[in-house]
Protein backbone atom coordinates (compact mmCIF):
# COMPACT_ATOMS: atom_id res chain seq x y z
CA UNK A 1 0.00 0.00 0.00
CA UNK A 2 2.68 2.48 1.08
CA UNK A 3 6.20 2.11 -0.15
CA UNK A 4 9.14 4.26 0.81
CA UNK A 5 12.44 3.94 -0.96
CA UNK A 6 15.92 5.41 -0.56
CA UNK A 7 14.52 8.31 1.43
CA UNK A 8 16.98 11.05 2.40
CA UNK A 9 16.00 14.00 4.56
CA UNK A 10 18.14 16.71 6.10
CA UNK A 11 17.62 19.53 8.55
CA UNK A 12 19.83 22.27 7.24
CA UNK A 13 23.14 20.50 6.89
CA UNK A 14 22.35 17.60 9.21
CA UNK A 15 21.24 14.44 7.47
CA UNK A 16 18.52 12.82 9.53
CA UNK A 17 17.52 10.08 7.09
CA UNK A 18 20.12 8.38 4.96
CA UNK A 19 18.18 6.18 2.60
CA UNK A 20 15.24 4.66 4.44
CA UNK A 21 13.19 2.01 2.65
CA UNK A 22 10.05 0.40 3.97
CA UNK A 23 6.77 -1.13 2.89
CA UNK A 24 3.39 -1.18 4.54
CA UNK A 25 0.89 -3.65 3.22
CA UNK A 26 -2.86 -3.14 3.25
CA UNK A 27 -4.41 -4.06 6.61
CA UNK A 28 -1.10 -4.36 8.39
CA UNK A 29 0.19 -2.86 11.59
CA UNK A 30 3.83 -2.06 10.99
CA UNK A 31 6.00 -0.94 13.89
CA UNK A 32 8.95 1.38 13.45
CA UNK A 33 11.45 1.05 16.30
CA UNK A 34 14.59 2.95 17.08
CA UNK A 35 16.51 4.99 19.60
CA UNK A 36 16.05 8.66 20.20
CA UNK A 37 16.98 10.62 17.16
CA UNK A 38 17.03 7.58 14.91
CA UNK A 39 14.71 9.34 12.50
CA UNK A 40 11.35 7.78 13.19
CA UNK A 41 9.47 11.04 13.52
CA UNK A 42 11.31 12.40 10.52
CA UNK A 43 10.15 9.46 8.46
CA UNK A 44 6.52 9.98 9.37
CA UNK A 45 6.71 13.72 8.81
CA UNK A 46 8.18 13.16 5.38
CA UNK A 47 5.47 10.71 4.44
CA UNK A 48 2.75 13.15 5.45
CA UNK A 49 4.43 15.98 3.58
CA UNK A 50 5.53 18.14 6.50
CA UNK A 51 9.13 17.68 5.41
CA UNK A 52 10.48 17.59 1.89
CA UNK A 53 12.88 14.79 1.15
CA UNK A 54 16.17 15.53 -0.55
CA UNK A 55 16.03 12.34 -2.46
CA UNK A 56 14.01 9.16 -2.59
CA UNK A 57 10.51 8.00 -3.34
CA UNK A 58 7.29 7.73 -1.39
CA UNK A 59 4.29 6.18 -3.07
CA UNK A 60 0.79 5.39 -1.92
CA UNK A 61 -0.57 2.58 -4.07
CA UNK A 62 1.83 3.55 -6.79
CA UNK A 63 1.04 7.25 -6.68
CA UNK A 64 4.02 9.41 -5.70
CA UNK A 65 3.65 11.64 -2.66
CA UNK A 66 6.93 13.49 -2.99
CA UNK A 67 6.45 17.23 -3.23
CA UNK A 68 2.73 17.05 -2.53
CA UNK A 69 1.78 19.50 0.25
CA UNK A 70 0.44 17.96 3.47
CA UNK A 71 -3.15 19.07 3.02
CA UNK A 72 -3.27 17.25 -0.32
CA UNK A 73 -1.73 14.12 1.11
CA UNK A 74 -4.50 14.06 3.67
CA UNK A 75 -6.97 13.98 0.79
CA UNK A 76 -5.39 10.75 -0.39
CA UNK A 77 -6.40 9.11 2.86
CA UNK A 78 -3.32 9.33 5.04
CA UNK A 79 -3.88 10.61 8.57
CA UNK A 80 -0.99 11.44 10.84
CA UNK A 81 -1.16 11.57 14.63
CA UNK A 82 1.90 13.69 15.32
CA UNK A 83 4.40 13.40 18.11
CA UNK A 84 3.19 15.29 21.17
CA UNK A 85 -0.48 15.04 20.16
CA UNK A 86 -0.75 18.55 18.77
CA UNK A 87 -4.45 18.84 19.44
CA UNK A 88 -6.01 22.29 19.14
CA UNK A 89 -6.06 23.38 22.75
CA UNK A 90 -8.41 26.29 22.35
CA UNK A 91 -10.97 24.41 20.31
CA UNK A 92 -13.61 22.22 21.89
CA UNK A 93 -13.42 18.46 21.62
CA UNK A 94 -16.15 18.48 19.02
CA UNK A 95 -14.43 21.17 16.99
CA UNK A 96 -11.20 19.21 17.09
CA UNK A 97 -13.00 16.18 15.76
CA UNK A 98 -14.70 18.20 13.05
CA UNK A 99 -11.33 19.54 11.98
CA UNK A 100 -10.29 15.96 11.49
CA UNK A 101 -13.03 15.66 8.90
CA UNK A 102 -12.15 18.98 7.29
CA UNK A 103 -11.72 17.83 3.69
CA UNK A 104 -14.95 15.85 3.73
CA UNK A 105 -18.25 17.34 2.71
CA UNK A 106 -20.65 14.48 3.29
CA UNK A 107 -22.41 15.72 6.40
CA UNK A 108 -24.33 12.51 7.00
CA UNK A 109 -21.31 10.26 6.73
CA UNK A 110 -19.34 12.57 8.98
CA UNK A 111 -22.03 12.37 11.61
CA UNK A 112 -21.92 8.59 11.31
CA UNK A 113 -18.17 8.53 11.75
CA UNK A 114 -18.43 10.82 14.73
CA UNK A 115 -20.74 8.33 16.40
CA UNK A 116 -18.40 5.49 15.59
CA UNK A 117 -15.41 7.31 17.02
CA UNK A 118 -17.29 8.18 20.16
CA UNK A 119 -18.15 4.55 20.63
CA UNK A 120 -14.47 3.78 20.38
CA UNK A 121 -13.60 6.55 22.87
CA UNK A 122 -16.60 6.98 25.18
CA UNK A 123 -14.61 9.39 27.38
CA UNK A 124 -14.55 11.90 24.55
CA UNK A 125 -18.29 11.68 24.27
CA UNK A 126 -18.62 12.72 27.88
CA UNK A 127 -16.45 15.77 27.24
CA UNK A 128 -17.57 16.67 23.79
CA UNK A 129 -18.08 20.39 24.56
CA UNK A 130 -15.03 20.82 26.77
CA UNK A 131 -12.10 22.94 25.61
CA UNK A 132 -9.48 20.43 24.55
CA UNK A 133 -6.59 22.11 26.35
CA UNK A 134 -8.12 21.21 29.69
CA UNK A 135 -8.28 17.49 28.99
CA UNK A 136 -5.92 15.19 30.81
CA UNK A 137 -2.92 13.82 28.97
CA UNK A 138 -4.51 10.49 28.20
CA UNK A 139 -7.70 12.09 27.01
CA UNK A 140 -5.72 14.37 24.77
CA UNK A 141 -4.01 11.37 23.21
CA UNK A 142 -7.37 9.75 22.60
CA UNK A 143 -8.59 12.94 21.02
CA UNK A 144 -5.57 13.07 18.75
CA UNK A 145 -6.22 9.57 17.50
CA UNK A 146 -9.95 10.10 17.23
CA UNK A 147 -9.40 13.29 15.28
CA UNK A 148 -7.26 11.43 12.78
CA UNK A 149 -9.91 8.72 12.46
CA UNK A 150 -12.51 11.33 11.53
CA UNK A 151 -10.85 11.52 8.13
CA UNK A 152 -11.77 7.91 7.53
CA UNK A 153 -8.16 7.23 6.62
CA UNK A 154 -6.82 4.31 4.68
CA UNK A 155 -3.48 4.66 6.36
CA UNK A 156 -2.90 5.91 9.89
CA UNK A 157 0.53 7.15 10.97
CA UNK A 158 0.92 7.05 14.75
CA UNK A 159 3.90 8.74 16.42
CA UNK A 160 4.51 7.54 19.97
CA UNK A 161 0.92 7.33 21.12
CA UNK A 162 1.94 6.10 24.57
CA UNK A 163 4.38 8.90 25.40
CA UNK A 164 3.80 10.41 28.81
CA UNK A 165 0.72 8.33 29.53
CA UNK A 166 -0.07 6.49 32.71
CA UNK A 167 0.25 2.70 32.42
CA UNK A 168 -3.53 2.15 32.49
CA UNK A 169 -3.95 4.45 29.59
CA UNK A 170 -1.10 2.95 27.62
CA UNK A 171 -2.87 -0.34 27.77
CA UNK A 172 -6.14 1.17 26.62
CA UNK A 173 -4.54 3.02 23.75
CA UNK A 174 -2.89 -0.11 22.42
CA UNK A 175 -6.12 -2.02 22.63
CA UNK A 176 -7.81 0.71 20.70
CA UNK A 177 -5.14 0.65 18.01
CA UNK A 178 -5.82 -3.03 17.51
CA UNK A 179 -9.54 -2.30 17.26
CA UNK A 180 -8.97 0.38 14.67
CA UNK A 181 -6.85 -1.97 12.65
CA UNK A 182 -9.50 -4.63 12.85
CA UNK A 183 -11.97 -2.22 11.37
CA UNK A 184 -9.78 -2.02 8.30
CA UNK A 185 -7.30 0.78 8.77
CA UNK A 186 -3.68 0.18 7.92
CA UNK A 187 -1.29 1.46 10.59
CA UNK A 188 2.32 2.58 10.65
CA UNK A 189 3.26 2.83 14.32
CA UNK A 190 6.28 4.56 15.83
CA UNK A 191 6.76 3.59 19.44
CA UNK A 192 9.42 3.64 22.11
CA UNK A 193 7.65 1.03 24.08
CA UNK A 194 8.95 -1.70 21.85
CA UNK A 195 7.47 -4.50 23.86
CA UNK A 196 3.95 -3.19 23.45
CA UNK A 197 4.48 -2.24 19.85
CA UNK A 198 5.77 -5.63 18.85
CA UNK A 199 2.93 -7.21 20.75
CA UNK A 200 0.34 -5.71 18.43
CA UNK A 201 2.27 -5.32 15.17
CA UNK A 202 2.50 -7.75 12.28
CA UNK A 203 5.88 -6.63 11.11
CA UNK A 204 8.53 -4.17 12.22
CA UNK A 205 11.52 -2.14 11.12
CA UNK A 206 14.44 -1.04 13.27
CA UNK A 207 15.92 2.33 12.47
CA UNK A 208 19.36 3.43 13.57
CA UNK A 209 20.80 6.88 12.85
CA UNK A 210 18.76 7.38 9.77
CA UNK A 211 18.94 3.92 8.19
CA UNK A 212 16.90 0.74 8.44
CA UNK A 213 19.14 -1.85 10.01
CA UNK A 214 16.71 -4.69 10.53
CA UNK A 215 13.31 -5.84 9.41
CA UNK A 216 11.29 -8.90 10.26
CA UNK A 217 7.96 -10.09 11.49
CA UNK A 218 7.03 -8.87 14.93
CA UNK A 219 7.68 -12.26 16.42
CA UNK A 220 11.01 -12.46 14.69
CA UNK A 221 12.08 -9.11 16.05
CA UNK A 222 10.93 -9.99 19.55
CA UNK A 223 13.19 -12.97 19.43
CA UNK A 224 16.15 -11.11 17.97
CA UNK A 225 18.94 -10.83 20.54
CA UNK A 226 20.02 -7.32 19.50
CA UNK A 227 16.50 -6.04 19.64
CA UNK A 228 15.94 -7.64 23.01
CA UNK A 229 19.03 -5.97 24.39
CA UNK A 230 18.53 -2.51 22.93
CA UNK A 231 14.77 -2.07 22.95
CA UNK A 232 13.28 -4.59 25.29
CA UNK A 233 15.76 -3.85 28.04
CA UNK A 234 16.97 -7.32 28.79
Amino acid sequence: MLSVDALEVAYGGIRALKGVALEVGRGEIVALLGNNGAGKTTTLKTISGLLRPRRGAIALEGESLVGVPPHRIVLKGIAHVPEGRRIFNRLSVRENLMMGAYPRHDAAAIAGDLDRVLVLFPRLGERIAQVAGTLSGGEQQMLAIARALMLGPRLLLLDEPSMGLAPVLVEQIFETIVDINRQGTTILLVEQNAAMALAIAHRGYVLETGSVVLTDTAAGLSDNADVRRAYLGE
Partner: protein
Amino acid sequence: MDLPLLVGIFPQVFLDGLILGFMYALIALGYTMVYGVLEFINFAHSEIFIVGAFVGVEILLGMRAAGWLEALPWPLVLLLILVAGMAGAGLLAVSVERIAYRPLRGAPRLIPLISAIGVSFFLQDLIRLVESIWRNAFNLVYPTMDALNHRFELTETIDVSVKSLVVIAAALAMLWALHALVNRTKIGTAIRAVAEDQAAASLMGIDVNRIISLTFLIGGAMGGAAGVLFGVQYGLINPYSGFIPGLKAFTAAVLGGIGNIPGAMIGGVVLGLLEAFAASYLSLLTGGAFGAEYKDIFAFSVLILILIFRPKGLLGEIVRERA
Protein backbone atom coordinates in the same frame (compact mmCIF):
# COMPACT_ATOMS: atom_id res chain seq x y z
CA MET B 1 -16.83 74.16 37.38
CA ASP B 2 -20.10 74.18 35.61
CA LEU B 3 -21.94 71.12 36.77
CA PRO B 4 -25.03 71.38 34.53
CA LEU B 5 -22.72 71.71 31.55
CA LEU B 6 -20.69 68.69 32.58
CA VAL B 7 -23.81 66.60 33.00
CA GLY B 8 -25.51 68.10 29.98
CA ILE B 9 -22.94 67.04 27.44
CA PHE B 10 -22.42 63.60 28.91
CA PRO B 11 -24.70 61.66 26.53
CA GLN B 12 -23.27 63.46 23.53
CA VAL B 13 -19.69 62.67 24.54
CA PHE B 14 -20.68 59.10 25.19
CA LEU B 15 -22.12 58.84 21.71
CA ASP B 16 -19.04 60.45 20.16
CA GLY B 17 -16.84 58.01 21.98
CA LEU B 18 -18.96 55.09 20.91
CA ILE B 19 -18.70 56.00 17.23
CA LEU B 20 -14.96 56.44 17.44
CA GLY B 21 -14.74 53.24 19.42
CA PHE B 22 -16.57 51.18 16.82
CA MET B 23 -14.30 52.59 14.17
CA TYR B 24 -11.29 51.52 16.19
CA ALA B 25 -12.90 48.16 16.78
CA LEU B 26 -13.31 47.51 13.08
CA ILE B 27 -9.70 48.44 12.38
CA ALA B 28 -8.51 46.51 15.40
CA LEU B 29 -10.03 43.34 13.98
CA GLY B 30 -7.46 43.39 11.20
CA TYR B 31 -4.64 43.53 13.71
CA THR B 32 -6.15 40.95 15.95
CA MET B 33 -6.94 38.41 13.25
CA VAL B 34 -3.47 38.61 11.77
CA TYR B 35 -1.94 38.50 15.20
CA GLY B 36 -4.06 35.56 16.16
CA VAL B 37 -2.86 33.55 13.20
CA LEU B 38 0.69 34.72 12.59
CA GLU B 39 1.58 36.33 15.92
CA PHE B 40 2.94 39.50 14.50
CA ILE B 41 1.85 43.10 14.35
CA ASN B 42 0.80 43.96 10.83
CA PHE B 43 1.94 47.53 10.77
CA ALA B 44 0.74 47.95 7.22
CA HIS B 45 -2.84 47.49 8.31
CA SER B 46 -3.24 51.23 8.83
CA GLU B 47 -2.52 51.71 5.14
CA ILE B 48 -4.84 48.90 4.19
CA PHE B 49 -7.49 50.70 6.18
CA ILE B 50 -6.88 53.97 4.42
CA VAL B 51 -6.90 52.28 1.03
CA GLY B 52 -10.45 51.26 1.83
CA ALA B 53 -11.24 54.90 2.41
CA PHE B 54 -9.61 55.84 -0.88
CA VAL B 55 -11.53 53.24 -2.84
CA GLY B 56 -14.70 54.60 -1.30
CA VAL B 57 -13.94 58.21 -2.13
CA GLU B 58 -12.88 57.40 -5.66
CA ILE B 59 -16.16 55.68 -6.33
CA LEU B 60 -18.13 58.50 -4.79
CA LEU B 61 -16.24 61.09 -6.80
CA GLY B 62 -16.76 59.05 -9.93
CA MET B 63 -20.45 58.74 -9.23
CA ARG B 64 -20.74 62.42 -8.55
CA ALA B 65 -19.04 63.22 -11.82
CA ALA B 66 -21.48 60.92 -13.58
CA GLY B 67 -24.38 62.50 -11.74
CA TRP B 68 -25.42 59.28 -10.08
CA LEU B 69 -24.76 60.41 -6.56
CA GLU B 70 -27.99 62.34 -6.41
CA ALA B 71 -29.90 59.93 -8.58
CA LEU B 72 -29.36 56.77 -6.57
CA PRO B 73 -30.85 56.24 -3.11
CA TRP B 74 -28.23 56.83 -0.44
CA PRO B 75 -28.41 53.43 1.24
CA LEU B 76 -27.53 51.85 -2.07
CA VAL B 77 -24.62 54.22 -2.60
CA LEU B 78 -23.38 53.56 0.89
CA LEU B 79 -23.64 49.82 0.47
CA LEU B 80 -21.82 50.05 -2.81
CA ILE B 81 -18.85 51.98 -1.45
CA LEU B 82 -18.72 49.79 1.63
CA VAL B 83 -18.53 46.65 -0.46
CA ALA B 84 -16.01 48.19 -2.82
CA GLY B 85 -13.87 49.50 0.03
CA MET B 86 -13.93 46.10 1.69
CA ALA B 87 -13.02 44.33 -1.53
CA GLY B 88 -10.21 46.74 -2.33
CA ALA B 89 -8.67 46.68 1.11
CA GLY B 90 -9.17 42.95 1.47
CA LEU B 91 -7.43 42.18 -1.80
CA LEU B 92 -4.61 44.55 -0.95
CA ALA B 93 -4.16 42.82 2.39
CA VAL B 94 -4.02 39.45 0.66
CA SER B 95 -1.41 40.65 -1.82
CA VAL B 96 0.69 42.23 0.90
CA GLU B 97 0.73 38.94 2.73
CA ARG B 98 1.71 37.07 -0.40
CA ILE B 99 4.56 39.38 -1.28
CA ALA B 100 5.94 40.63 1.97
CA TYR B 101 5.02 38.19 4.73
CA ARG B 102 4.70 34.73 3.27
CA PRO B 103 8.38 34.42 2.42
CA LEU B 104 9.10 35.23 6.07
CA ARG B 105 7.08 32.45 7.67
CA GLY B 106 9.18 30.75 10.24
CA ALA B 107 11.60 33.65 10.61
CA PRO B 108 11.95 35.16 14.10
CA ARG B 109 8.94 37.21 15.09
CA LEU B 110 10.41 40.65 14.64
CA ILE B 111 11.38 40.06 11.02
CA PRO B 112 7.88 40.28 9.57
CA LEU B 113 7.32 43.28 11.81
CA ILE B 114 10.06 45.20 10.04
CA SER B 115 8.81 44.01 6.70
CA ALA B 116 5.40 45.33 7.67
CA ILE B 117 6.87 48.69 8.54
CA GLY B 118 8.51 48.73 5.13
CA VAL B 119 5.21 47.92 3.47
CA SER B 120 3.58 50.67 5.46
CA PHE B 121 6.07 53.29 4.22
CA PHE B 122 5.81 51.95 0.73
CA LEU B 123 2.04 51.98 0.60
CA GLN B 124 1.73 55.50 2.01
CA ASP B 125 3.76 56.97 -0.78
CA LEU B 126 2.34 54.62 -3.35
CA ILE B 127 -1.17 55.85 -2.60
CA ARG B 128 0.17 59.35 -2.84
CA LEU B 129 1.85 58.63 -6.16
CA VAL B 130 -1.25 57.08 -7.64
CA GLU B 131 -3.56 59.81 -6.46
CA SER B 132 -1.08 62.49 -7.50
CA ILE B 133 -1.07 61.19 -11.02
CA TRP B 134 -4.74 60.45 -11.12
CA ARG B 135 -6.16 63.52 -9.44
CA ASN B 136 -3.15 65.71 -8.87
CA ALA B 137 -4.14 65.85 -5.22
CA PHE B 138 -3.92 63.41 -2.38
CA ASN B 139 -6.00 65.16 0.21
CA LEU B 140 -9.39 63.91 -0.84
CA VAL B 141 -12.73 65.01 0.48
CA TYR B 142 -15.68 62.71 0.78
CA PRO B 143 -18.59 64.21 -1.12
CA THR B 144 -21.35 64.98 1.31
CA MET B 145 -24.58 63.13 1.06
CA ASP B 146 -27.16 65.39 2.58
CA ALA B 147 -29.39 62.62 3.77
CA LEU B 148 -26.52 61.28 5.85
CA ASN B 149 -25.89 64.62 7.46
CA HIS B 150 -29.42 64.96 8.69
CA ARG B 151 -29.44 65.40 12.44
CA PHE B 152 -32.02 64.40 14.99
CA GLU B 153 -32.00 66.98 17.76
CA LEU B 154 -32.68 65.17 20.98
CA THR B 155 -32.14 68.10 23.30
CA GLU B 156 -30.58 71.48 22.94
CA THR B 157 -27.05 70.17 23.29
CA ILE B 158 -27.51 66.61 22.16
CA ASP B 159 -28.13 65.39 18.68
CA VAL B 160 -27.28 62.49 16.51
CA SER B 161 -26.75 62.43 12.78
CA VAL B 162 -27.86 59.75 10.39
CA LYS B 163 -24.29 58.93 9.48
CA SER B 164 -23.39 58.35 13.13
CA LEU B 165 -26.21 55.87 13.37
CA VAL B 166 -25.07 54.27 10.16
CA VAL B 167 -21.55 53.88 11.53
CA ILE B 168 -22.79 52.23 14.68
CA ALA B 169 -25.21 49.98 12.86
CA ALA B 170 -22.71 48.94 10.22
CA ALA B 171 -19.99 48.30 12.77
CA LEU B 172 -22.27 46.21 14.94
CA ALA B 173 -23.53 44.22 11.99
CA MET B 174 -20.05 43.50 10.75
CA LEU B 175 -18.73 42.58 14.14
CA TRP B 176 -21.61 40.22 14.63
CA ALA B 177 -21.10 38.67 11.21
CA LEU B 178 -17.44 38.15 11.85
CA HIS B 179 -18.05 36.67 15.24
CA ALA B 180 -20.52 34.24 13.74
CA LEU B 181 -18.16 33.35 10.94
CA VAL B 182 -15.26 32.62 13.21
CA ASN B 183 -17.15 30.74 15.88
CA ARG B 184 -19.93 28.97 14.08
CA THR B 185 -18.60 27.91 10.71
CA LYS B 186 -16.19 25.28 9.57
CA ILE B 187 -14.00 27.89 7.94
CA GLY B 188 -13.95 29.83 11.17
CA THR B 189 -12.92 26.76 13.11
CA ALA B 190 -10.20 26.17 10.55
CA ILE B 191 -8.96 29.71 11.06
CA ARG B 192 -8.73 29.11 14.77
CA ALA B 193 -7.02 25.79 14.21
CA VAL B 194 -4.41 27.38 11.96
CA ALA B 195 -3.94 30.11 14.53
CA GLU B 196 -3.01 27.53 17.09
CA ASP B 197 -0.84 25.11 15.18
CA GLN B 198 -0.16 25.42 11.48
CA ALA B 199 1.55 22.07 11.05
CA ALA B 200 -1.21 20.20 12.86
CA ALA B 201 -3.79 22.07 10.83
CA SER B 202 -2.15 21.02 7.60
CA LEU B 203 -2.33 17.43 8.82
CA MET B 204 -6.10 17.87 9.00
CA GLY B 205 -6.15 18.64 5.30
CA ILE B 206 -6.43 22.37 5.85
CA ASP B 207 -4.65 24.44 3.22
CA VAL B 208 -2.83 26.71 5.62
CA ASN B 209 -1.84 29.24 2.99
CA ARG B 210 -5.41 29.64 1.89
CA ILE B 211 -6.64 30.09 5.41
CA ILE B 212 -4.00 32.71 6.07
CA SER B 213 -4.94 34.52 2.89
CA LEU B 214 -8.54 34.33 3.99
CA THR B 215 -7.63 35.78 7.35
CA PHE B 216 -5.92 38.71 5.67
CA LEU B 217 -8.89 39.08 3.37
CA ILE B 218 -11.31 39.29 6.26
CA GLY B 219 -9.11 41.53 8.38
CA GLY B 220 -8.41 43.74 5.40
CA ALA B 221 -12.07 43.92 4.48
CA MET B 222 -13.02 44.94 8.00
CA GLY B 223 -10.31 47.59 7.80
CA GLY B 224 -11.62 48.69 4.43
CA ALA B 225 -15.13 49.01 5.81
CA ALA B 226 -13.76 51.04 8.68
CA GLY B 227 -11.93 53.20 6.15
CA VAL B 228 -15.09 53.97 4.23
CA LEU B 229 -17.02 54.71 7.41
CA PHE B 230 -14.12 56.87 8.57
CA GLY B 231 -14.27 58.88 5.38
CA VAL B 232 -18.03 59.24 5.55
CA GLN B 233 -17.94 60.28 9.17
CA TYR B 234 -14.97 62.65 9.24
CA GLY B 235 -14.76 63.82 5.66
CA LEU B 236 -11.10 64.25 4.78
CA ILE B 237 -8.53 61.57 4.02
CA ASN B 238 -4.96 61.50 2.84
CA PRO B 239 -2.42 58.70 2.47
CA TYR B 240 -1.01 59.38 5.90
CA SER B 241 -4.24 59.69 7.82
CA GLY B 242 -4.46 55.96 8.42
CA PHE B 243 -1.39 55.94 10.58
CA ILE B 244 -2.70 57.40 13.83
CA PRO B 245 -6.06 55.61 13.83
CA GLY B 246 -4.11 52.46 12.99
CA LEU B 247 -1.88 52.93 15.99
CA LYS B 248 -4.88 53.55 18.20
CA ALA B 249 -6.72 50.57 16.87
CA PHE B 250 -3.72 48.41 17.48
CA THR B 251 -3.63 49.73 21.02
CA ALA B 252 -7.30 48.87 21.29
CA ALA B 253 -6.60 45.35 20.10
CA VAL B 254 -3.97 44.92 22.80
CA LEU B 255 -6.18 46.52 25.40
CA GLY B 256 -8.87 43.96 24.68
CA GLY B 257 -6.40 41.09 24.60
CA ILE B 258 -4.66 40.68 21.29
CA GLY B 259 -5.79 37.81 19.13
CA ASN B 260 -9.19 37.90 20.74
CA ILE B 261 -12.04 39.07 18.52
CA PRO B 262 -14.56 40.22 21.13
CA GLY B 263 -11.55 41.72 22.90
CA ALA B 264 -10.78 43.90 19.90
CA MET B 265 -14.27 45.20 20.00
CA ILE B 266 -14.34 45.92 23.70
CA GLY B 267 -10.87 47.42 23.51
CA GLY B 268 -11.90 49.68 20.66
CA VAL B 269 -14.97 50.93 22.42
CA VAL B 270 -13.14 51.47 25.71
CA LEU B 271 -10.40 53.40 23.97
CA GLY B 272 -12.88 55.46 21.99
CA LEU B 273 -14.80 56.37 25.11
CA LEU B 274 -11.63 57.18 27.03
CA GLU B 275 -10.46 59.48 24.29
CA ALA B 276 -13.78 61.20 23.88
CA PHE B 277 -14.21 61.80 27.57
CA ALA B 278 -10.66 62.99 28.01
CA ALA B 279 -10.90 65.38 25.08
CA SER B 280 -14.23 66.78 26.19
CA TYR B 281 -13.81 66.87 29.92
CA LEU B 282 -10.16 67.37 30.80
CA SER B 283 -10.25 71.06 30.11
CA LEU B 284 -13.58 71.54 31.85
CA LEU B 285 -12.49 69.63 34.92
CA THR B 286 -9.08 71.25 35.33
CA GLY B 287 -10.18 74.75 34.54
CA GLY B 288 -8.12 74.81 31.37
CA ALA B 289 -4.83 73.71 32.94
CA PHE B 290 -4.95 70.51 30.93
CA GLY B 291 -6.98 70.14 27.80
CA ALA B 292 -7.79 67.97 24.84
CA GLU B 293 -4.10 67.78 24.00
CA TYR B 294 -3.75 65.37 26.89
CA LYS B 295 -6.29 62.91 25.60
CA ASP B 296 -3.66 60.51 24.28
CA ILE B 297 -1.65 60.68 27.47
CA PHE B 298 -4.80 59.95 29.36
CA ALA B 299 -5.73 57.08 27.08
CA PHE B 300 -2.27 55.57 27.18
CA SER B 301 -1.98 55.94 30.95
CA VAL B 302 -5.23 54.10 31.42
CA LEU B 303 -3.96 51.48 28.99
CA ILE B 304 -0.78 51.03 31.00
CA LEU B 305 -2.76 50.78 34.22
CA ILE B 306 -5.15 48.24 32.78
CA LEU B 307 -2.29 46.13 31.50
CA ILE B 308 -0.51 46.28 34.82
CA PHE B 309 -3.55 44.84 36.51
CA ARG B 310 -4.65 42.63 33.64
CA PRO B 311 -1.45 41.72 31.83
CA LYS B 312 -3.29 39.94 29.03
CA GLY B 313 -5.75 42.68 28.30
CA LEU B 314 -9.39 42.96 29.22
CA LEU B 315 -10.52 39.71 27.65
CA GLY B 316 -7.19 37.99 27.11
CA GLU B 317 -6.80 34.48 28.40
CA ILE B 318 -5.31 34.66 31.84
CA VAL B 319 -4.27 31.06 31.89
CA ARG B 320 -0.67 31.06 32.99
CA GLU B 321 1.79 29.39 30.75
CA ARG B 322 2.02 25.75 31.76
CA ALA B 323 5.41 24.72 32.99
